[in-house]
């Protein structure tokens, strides 16, 4: 059964891209949740909708356009927080609403691309092309390398930003870096589960891991495992049961969240 599952080229591509993207989502998710920035991923996904719509409207590489708009939005949210003194969720709320509005406007102006737009909204991992797989893997490797190289500084800033700044860490630079990495990851995740569900791939595996992890390193490992296992089994179930892959992957993530939550409760009682 597994052998025949892996014999399909489109499934091999989906698995390769899915596993790498899930890793990036899961690792960044732990940092975002602990920084109380979980909605950042959700907001960026909405803005990415405008990027995709603009790309389709102008007939200019929707993925690249989405990447550009998502990065600009991430920097915009950061700037609004810092310069205008807005709360993080307010800045995210403004950008996500404006992004959705712009996307809807562009979609209604040119109705011919609505079918394409739907594939970005709901994910199309089983139709992913080899070039997209290579681009995704390349970008995810860059994201993961940056996180590994600056792991301690990200951790210090996440845990205690004031002390981190007092110890000489340039906090704003790392905020920019983390925001850009999140934007890139959200755009890549869009290919796996779609814009409507990509925030789930960032938030739920990390939230599940945080239920039971005693150290930060363990939380990162467990979050990655939950995301990767959900993608692999999600694709497997979607293929054999003829289910939508994106929804199956996200619901599997939620299953792990419930499982780890139950484990935590049982540990607490005993």
């Amino acid at each position, binding site marked *: 059964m597994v052998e025949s599952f892996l014999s399909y080229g489109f499934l091999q591509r989906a698995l390769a891209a899915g596993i790498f993207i899930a890793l990036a989502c899961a690792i960044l998710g732990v940092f975002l949740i*602990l920084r109380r920035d979980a909605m950042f991923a959700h907001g960026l996904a909405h803005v990415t909708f405008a990027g995709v719509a603009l790309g389709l409207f102008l007939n200019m590489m929707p993925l690249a356009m989405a990447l550009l708009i998502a990065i600009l939005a991430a920097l915009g949210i950061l700037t609004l927080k810092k310069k205008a003194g807005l709360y993080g969720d307010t800045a995210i709320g403004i950008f996500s609403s404006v992004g959705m509005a712009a996307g809807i406007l562009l979609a209604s102006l040119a109705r011919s691309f609505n079918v394409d737009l739907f594939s970005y909204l709901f994910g199309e991992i089983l139709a992913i092309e080899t070039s997209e797989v290579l681009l995704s893997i390349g970008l995810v490797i860059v994201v993961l390398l940056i996180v*590994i*190289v*600056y*792991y*301690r*500084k990200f*951790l*210090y800033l996440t*845990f*205690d930003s*004031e*002390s*981190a*700044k*007092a*110890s*000489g*860490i340039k906090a704003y630079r790392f905020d920019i870096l983390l925001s850009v990495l999140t934007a890139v990851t959200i755009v890549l995740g869009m290919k796996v589960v779609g814009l409507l569900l990509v925030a789930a791939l960032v938030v739920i595996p990390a939230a599940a891991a*945080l239920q039971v*992890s*005693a*150290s*930060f*390193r*363990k*939380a990162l490992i467990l979050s990655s495992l939950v995301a990767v296992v959900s993608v692999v089994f999600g694709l497997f179930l979607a293929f054999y049961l003829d289910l939508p892959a994106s929804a199956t992957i996200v619901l599997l993530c939620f299953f792990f969240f419930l499982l780890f939550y139950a484990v935590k409760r049982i540990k607490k009682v005993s």
Partner: protein
Amino acid sequence: MDSTADEDKILISVKNIHFRYEYTPVLIDVSFTIHSGDFLAIIGPNGSGKTTLLKIILRLLKPSLGKVRIMGKPAEEFEDWPAIGYVPQKATHVDPLFPVSVKEVVAMGLFSSKRISLPVNRKEESAAVQNALCQVGLSSFRNRRIGKLSAGQQQRVFIARAIVNRPRILFLDEPTTGVDAETQERFYDMLDQLNKKEGITIALITHDIGIINKHVTKVACLNQKLVYHGTHEDFCRSEAFKEMLTAGHHLISHRH
């Protein structure tokens, strides 16, 4: 020659510092120095500008006017951050759900000033963490989740993080807030050890004037302006001290 030697011993020099939040003045023309080996208490009533002054020294805030020099260099040019340890005010308010172990917290201090944060020598890193934890008496807690420790133990972990680089000066902002009196006494004894045995200069903000008699060597008393700066013996005889006691400022006096 004496004055040169004295200048060499100056670790922190604060000159004519003014600071205002919008239109409210917080610090007015504050000048003082911290010398190598000092155990300095910065005291004053709520809203007197103690934490603001500390944040200016650490470059977390920019003064409206005035200059800070750190170890002889203008603060904006200072780069030797491992030489400074800092324990913030909120150190005893750790998010209990944050999944970070004691050794992970202490190791944070090791890499903050390095360009990349990969552990190059795990053995050295582990030894430095263990040594810092030994100094605060928590070596057996290294694998515990910090959120599960008591407030006093958490405070010690933050001290370990602040001294893991063997700093020349350690700043603490109200380190015993939320810690019971007995633990406070052990805590100040530990700071004494760091000051006298390890030679770490200590500057701490506190409401607890009871520690002045037993532990500190110098006092800086703030009330927007610098009301007093000098030895603890002179401070206890000063008008500033009497005023602080009689004015009903929010100060605590424990028997130490």
